[in-house]
């Protein structure tokens, strides 16, 4: 009856930003990313990728409440030269590259299979 609309979990509201970047005031070299309308699917992947980066000291996320469709990702890096935003960009690039490669390989595998038949 009073269930929230299904699109709330993936459609951005008017004026809502996909990602908000905030510098953490208390911890050095730390940034808080608030990503709207995302859940563990993206956040877990991002965190895993970020933690592969040796310069990243901390990467953790949480979903503040199951009915609030957003994730809060905290990232801290080791040095001033390499900000968490850089780390984030790199992680995203790497992920996209990885995805592309995955896609290519899947396509290639399908093509090979079709040729064989």
């Amino acid at each position, binding site marked *: 009856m009073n269930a929230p609309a299904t699109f709330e979990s993936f459609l951005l509201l008017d004026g809502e930003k996909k990602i908000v970047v905030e510098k*953490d005031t208390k*911890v050095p070299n730390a940034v808080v990313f608030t990503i709207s309308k995302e859940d563990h699917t993206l956040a877990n992947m991002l965190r895993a990728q970020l933690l592969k980066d040796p310069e990243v000291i*901390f990467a*953790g*996320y949480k979903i503040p409440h199951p009915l609030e469709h957003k994730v*809060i990702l905290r990232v*801290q890096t080791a040095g001033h030269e390499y900000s968490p935003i850089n780390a984030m960009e790199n992680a995203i690039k790497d992920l996209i590259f990885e995805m592309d490669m995955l896609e290519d390989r899947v396509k290639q595998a399908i093509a090979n299979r079709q040729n064989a038949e």
Partner: protein
Amino acid sequence: MDNDLRVRPKPKFGISDDAEDEMLQYQELFQRSNLQPSAQVVREPTIKRQQSNENEDRKKKHSNVDLTQTTVMRPHIIERDVSTTPIQLPKLVSDSFPRAKHRGGEDDLDKITLPNVKKASLFAKQMYRDGKLKACKELEQTKRPAMNQEISCSSLLTGIGLGEVTGERELQRIHDENIDRLKSMDEKEILDEKEKLLNSLDPKLIAFIRKRNKKGEDIIRTVDKGNVEKMDVGNETVSTQLPIDIDSRWIHMDSIEYEKLEWIKDLPKPSVQRTVDDSHPEGVPARFDFKGNLMSRTVDVPVTAALHHHGEEPEAAGYTLEELFHLSRSTVLQQRVLALQTLSNIIRQAHAGIYDIELQLPLIPKLIEAGILFLIRWAMDEQIEAIYMIAIECLANLIAPKKDEEILSKTMHWPCGYYEPVLTPAEIQLGDKKSESDLTDIEILEQDLVKCLFRMNLFKRIVYLFDRMKLLSPLTILNPVKNTFHILIRMARHSMTSANQIFEERELMDFIIREFIPEIIIPKEEGHIYEHLLPEALKFCRILASHGSTLAYNLINRYELHQRLTNHLVAAVNLSLSLQDNTTLSELLSLWRIFILHGHMANEFGSLIPTIILPLCRMCIQQMPHLIISKILIQLITLFDALIVYITKFILKHQKSSEDSTNVINWSHIHGLFDLILTIAKQTLIETDEKIDLEALRTTCLSCLASFLIGQQLLTINLLDLPTKVRQIRFQLFEPILRLKSTKQLIESIKFETAITSTNTSANLPTLTQRNTSPFGFLIALLRFTNIMYQIDKSLPDSSKFISQLMLTKDSEIVVYIKKMLNKLTSSVTRKTPWFEQYEHIFLFHFVQIIHQEKSTHDLPSIYYEILLTLLPSLLKGYHYLAQEILKFVLFDLSFWKRSNEIELADLSLVTNESLCLASNESIKISPSHRTILYERAVEHLPSLYTYYKNIFHINRSSIDLNICDIHFGNLLQIDDSFKLNIHYSQTLIDLTWPYGLLSSLYTNVFSIADNDKRLDIIMNTLRFVYILEMKNNIILYKMVTKTTRFAMIAGIYLLGSDVFLEKNVADYLVAFLNCFNEQNLLQKLETRTSIQSLMTFFDFYRLLVDQYEACSFGDVLYSNYLLVPLQQIYDVQLRKHVWIEHSTILKYLRLKPDQILFSLETFFIPYENDPDLIRYYAQVLLNGTIRKTIQPLLYMIAVHHLNVFLYDQTRTEQSDLQRNIMKNLQMASRNDKMLYDEIVYYKTFSRDGPVIFESLPLIRINWFQKLLQ
């Protein structure tokens, strides 16, 4: 036939004249028709008998009062054994209709002749042919067994294992098969086979079988012999044992049947044997006489006492509960009345606690469980007077113990004694039902007996019985009527809802008021009850009214009670010369007092003072040395007390408004009362009559005078006059009372007095169970008066020190008492506050307060502060003001908090660092001196902490909880008009974890605060106060809060926000707490399998803590410390697995160095890890590089340590595969990472600086190593 059809059927249950004839006719017709009834009684075979035998055995074995087995209440349903009955499935047919059965050619039948029958019918012949004729079968069978009988059934096979019926059947089948086989063989063959068997079988086995066969025969023989002998004995010896000589002239006594004359013999002597028998190690069923006294089995009771009966043990006198239950359902009137009467007496005695020692199980809960309530309720439905009257008595005894009411009426005039207990059991659990109405009566009964009574249409029945009893002789109905009121009073005590429900029963209420509080006064005639004022009815109204101002108002308005009560009061004074037999007057006054406390009928009373009340007082004083008169006086003075409080409150409230107040009662009405009360009080000093409760009168006088002084002081009326009044009371009353011998005796007796928690009550029927009244009422009144005296004359406490001189004697009874009380209050975490303990609470507070005033220069011993703090969680819900005062007293007394602590702060030699660096780059000092500074800073905050905690006490307080208690303590300004005069009998104001304030509600998100600053405030306040208590080694934390809770409440701070722990102030305290816990070795004593008080289980809590750490800790050192505490080896392996395996991401940023652990390091290494999963995981994270020595030194050392120990453990033969496996993997990895391999293999021990390594491996290790790698 035709006629019958045409006749119109008559109504079956009509009241026509010939209905009875017709019934008889039908019956005759039915009997003639010889029809089989549609339902038949089936006699169960042996099974039932056996089961009931078992039941009996169980009954005997079980406790002596186990009534759950009473069969008729909830009969055992025994399923019929149908396993032998063949099941015939309906045959499948292809046609649309079943085919008609063809009986076969009739010609065939002609040729058939039945054996033994001359002429058989066609039907019989047909049945014979089909083999269905039973008679025939039997005939044939008689031929067959002739052969079988010779060979008896095997004695070896019993078929027990196959079940009762199938076993026997199977046995028979085997037997038949054997016989068939034997039949088919001739004798020689049989002998050959036998020889073969004897040779092949084990000789032992053969011997056993033979012996067994023989034994079977023997048994049969002895049994036979026994029978014969018994018969002989019967014939010869019994005749001489008959206690009478049989006269030959008596009719039908020519041939004497001795068996039937057994009953005239004497009973066997009561046997001691049964009580000490080994077969009853758990005791024997209790037996009672008609008065409800326990009967001993060994005592030889004369049969004329009528206690012997034809039970299981005719020689034992008295009735067991089981027998009484049985008899109370008898159709014989006398038996039923007798049984109910006895049960009623038993219940009365049980409530009085007489059986507590003798019986193994509490009696009342057992009786209720056995269904005594239904039994009584059915008996109340009888039309016979004797039965319903005794049923009423029984019910009254069951639900309303006399002792409770008696003591409540004795404490009623005490300060705060106007509270009535609300006796509601714990809230009803619905289980899987949706609402309470879905629950069955029995389910309700199990949880709440009185609520169950409400469902039983009790009120309609009571009205009917009231009406019926009106016609009977007044003497017989006096007790039943009173008992009915006891029932109603107890039901009204149940809860506010119940009281309203009773009040809405118009018929009942109308009847009660009309008959028992009549408007017209008829001169008292001996023994008349109806149409006269009945004290019980007044009390009933009082209990109803105690449930709130609204109910009291409705009660007065609907029945014009003010008119009725005034009439009776006037009549009592004017009509009778002597008050000495007026028992109703005191009850009337106490009802009026309740109304006044609620703010009703005060003006009416005020207008009566000059004309009625003062003459009444004078009459009382004249007739004074008398029991009833003193009762009336007590009620009168407590009524004045209430009136003074009411007027004070009223004037304070309306001071500013300029309403016309000419008709309203004011101070001038009561001004004259002062002298009157003082006169009465002085009178009590002169009287010496032992029988009269002078103490009670003194209590009320002191209390009333105190209220008078408080009122005058608050209203600033004639302030100059006050000190004179104080001096007057002091010299004429107060000091003489202190010198009284009885006062000293009271104080000496105090060390024995503390309220008891009851053991006999059942959860569904709460009772108060206090055996005697304590001296606290008087002492409270005395202390309260002293207090107000000191307030008016500020120089008095320095000069006189009345109370110290009186109570702090050499023997120091009070100190003994306080120590005892402290032990009692902290005795268990789940302690319930007994109802009458509330007076002790008030006493303790007043006492400490006064002692503090008298000892202005010296410090009070710490125990006084401790008892007050410990008192807080025991206060009943409703004592908000007392709680607040206690807190104010303790928190504002800085002399206590600043007192030097006994223990010196230990030097934390474990930790080499002087400070700790947080994730926010702030450094926290961890030196002992810093902790002292923290403590001092926290103590400075105490005044603000008082406001914080005071508000917490008031958070759970709804407006209806506002209590008159506040008035009593002089807190007059904050009172609403709607309050009630009762408190729940066991609900406490705050729970044991109160020092943690709002933290637990923050953890469970009950209390959500968006504002960050506010939340930080709450956290800081709590941390400061708890820290003070921890540093003071306070007893509330030590004894009443579990160690797990203490740790979790503080560690939980991390859950309260992603950045709270980065605040320097908070982190300061978190470090200090960790040190504190470490000093007390608390970090190694958590109970991880328990729950945190007023919160979740520890495991759930830890899960939250880990999640939070994973999300936003930034790898903070301090947070890591808290997180690591439950990971010590002494705790559950599940906790370690939770972090290491399920949340392995955490391992990435748990970068603690070994020397950053703020508590003992050893416990992470010893005892060694046993769990193979975890060991395997340690190897995995080391090998794949998740954990590196450079990044996570502590985790690395832990993993290496346990892996090393595991690999070199030579005792683990069952896990050698795993050892070998890991070793091989290590060797493989050593090609890439030689260092890791070396560290694991050469590891020696742990240290704060990192792993210590063997220079060269010991020989034993080398050998083992070689062996593993082979």
